[in-house]
């Protein structure tokens, strides 16, 4: 299986005219092929900066990112975005002017990897897998928030990316929809295993989904703690109250709270 992601000494400095802002500092992170890595950290700490560098939307100031040994980003240079690493964005990025089916099928067609007929057929199969085959000809605006997220994940998977980059994909959903979406994601990933880089604010979500949970410090983001989650997969929501889950949660929540508090104080000072 492909998709081994390696991040070495990643640093990012935003050179605003007045003050330099260090967003990332000496991040070393290895994500094995097929591993689900959940990143938790306070708001604005630099999680999305790292994701953008992996995706090819932004460069690093120092350090290297490689995917299966091939360079994705090094100092001030990055490989352009392509289908090997697909992002599911925080606020969603389904094209509202096209149908659900077009949204899902467009990737392979634009890459000339599949014909329109093949792509549509594959898109229908994937949509059926998340129970949305009847919505194929609707516009995204006619779907619920949870349905849109499902379409978006399916749109990412049809491109057979090596890495799936998820930037707080379930943030805007209510708690119930969120737990259903997590189970959909788990199910899809057992069907098509992928390396996943998953950003979240929600520690429970990170432990529930992740093979590994990485806690980022407040800005500049460094790796504060990295824990391998040894709860066997597939996991169901019952484990949220299991002793092992609570033990891991207790182990991580102290660090997260401390970082959140630091980020908050810094934010207060910057505003004052």
């Amino acid at each position, binding site marked *: 299986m492909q998709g081994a992601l390696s991040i070495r000494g990643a640093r990012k400095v935003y050179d605003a005219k007045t003050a330099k802002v260090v967003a990332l500092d000496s991040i070393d992170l290895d994500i094995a092929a097929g591993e689900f890595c959940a990143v938790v950290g306070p708001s604005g700490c630099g999680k999305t900066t790292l994701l953008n560098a992996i*995706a*090819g*939307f932004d460069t690093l100031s120092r350090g290297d990112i490689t995917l299966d040994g091939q360079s994705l980003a090094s100092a001030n240079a990055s490989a*352009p*975005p*392509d*289908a090997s*690493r*697909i*992002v599911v*964005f925080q*606020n969603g*990025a389904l*094209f*509202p*002017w*096209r149908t659900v089916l077009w949204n899902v099928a*467009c*990737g392979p067609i*634009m*890459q000339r990897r599949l014909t329109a007929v093949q792509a549509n057929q594959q898109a229908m199969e994937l949509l059926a897998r998340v129970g949305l085959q009847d919505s194929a000809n609707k*516009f*995204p*605006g006619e779907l619920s928030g949870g349905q849109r997220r499902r379409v978006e994940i399916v*749109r990412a998977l049809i*491109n057979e990316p090596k890495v799936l980059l998820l930037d707080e994909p379930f943030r805007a959903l209510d708690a119930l929809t969120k737990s259903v979406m997590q189970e959909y994601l788990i199910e899809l990933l057992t069907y098509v295993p992928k390396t996943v880089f998953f950003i979240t604010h929600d520690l429970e979500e990170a432990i529930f989904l992740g093979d590994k949970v990485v806690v980022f410090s407040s800005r500049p983001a460094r790796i504060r703690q990295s824990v391998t989650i040894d709860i066997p997969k597939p996991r169901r929501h019952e484990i949220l109250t299991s002793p092992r889950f609570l033990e891991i949660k207790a182990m991580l929540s102290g660090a997260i709270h401390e970082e959140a508090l630091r980020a908050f104080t810094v934010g207060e000072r910057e505003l004052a």
Partner: protein
Amino acid sequence: MAFEIANIDGSADNAAEPSRPRKFLLRHASFMVGSLTILLLGLAWEFARPLGLPGLSRLPAPTAIVAASAELLHSPMFWEACYKSTLRIISGFCLAQIVGIPLGFIMATNRTIFNSAFPVAESLRPIPPVAWIPISIIFWPTREASTIFIVFLGAFWIVLLNTIGGVSTIDQTYRRAALSLGSSRGHLLRYIIFPATLPTIVTGMVISMGICWEMVVAAEMIAGDTGLGYLLWQSFEISATAQVLVCMFTIGLAGFLSSAAIRKLGRLLTPWSPNE
């Protein structure tokens, strides 16, 4: 027996829903209220006139306007004027879209062109199109061409600025998502930038259609030899005041209908947009 059943059915129907004329009234309630208000205003005008209010007594009575419009509707000259004005509107409006939309896209996507063309646009835009009429008459070989140019100008700035604005406010994530999905520059323009801008373009079309009617009337009054604006001014010069008012109402109605048509077209072009 059969009679009874039919009777029961009939009464049941009546109880379930209002009778047909009543239903019609309910469905068109706001239209009815609006029409009634207009009718009442007309009546007030008719009966206030003999009271000797200043100004009002110099205007013709609504009944005289109705009579004048009946007369005008039978004259080929009136229809000729409607036809000419409509033709000018369509030409000027379409030209503005054909020139303004692509130019807007080019300006919004190319920094060099934007930096050189935008100052020119910004220095010409504040000049009201009506102020262009004399120069337009001198510049263009025919009166027809200069009238169409004025109509074009009225719509052009709005179309141009709306297109530029639409392109430059596209959510960055759509572009990024498309690039990840493997889209080329051509794909990006066709599948992302163009459709994402379309709702703003449609808004520009609706607004500019209104401006087009203002411009055609002004241009015809000053430079025309046909058209509704010309007819309106001629009627004024021969003191046919009722006819002036008929022309005014016709122009108002035409403006309303053409804006409605553009709105309809906009809904067809952007079927994903929620209806307001």
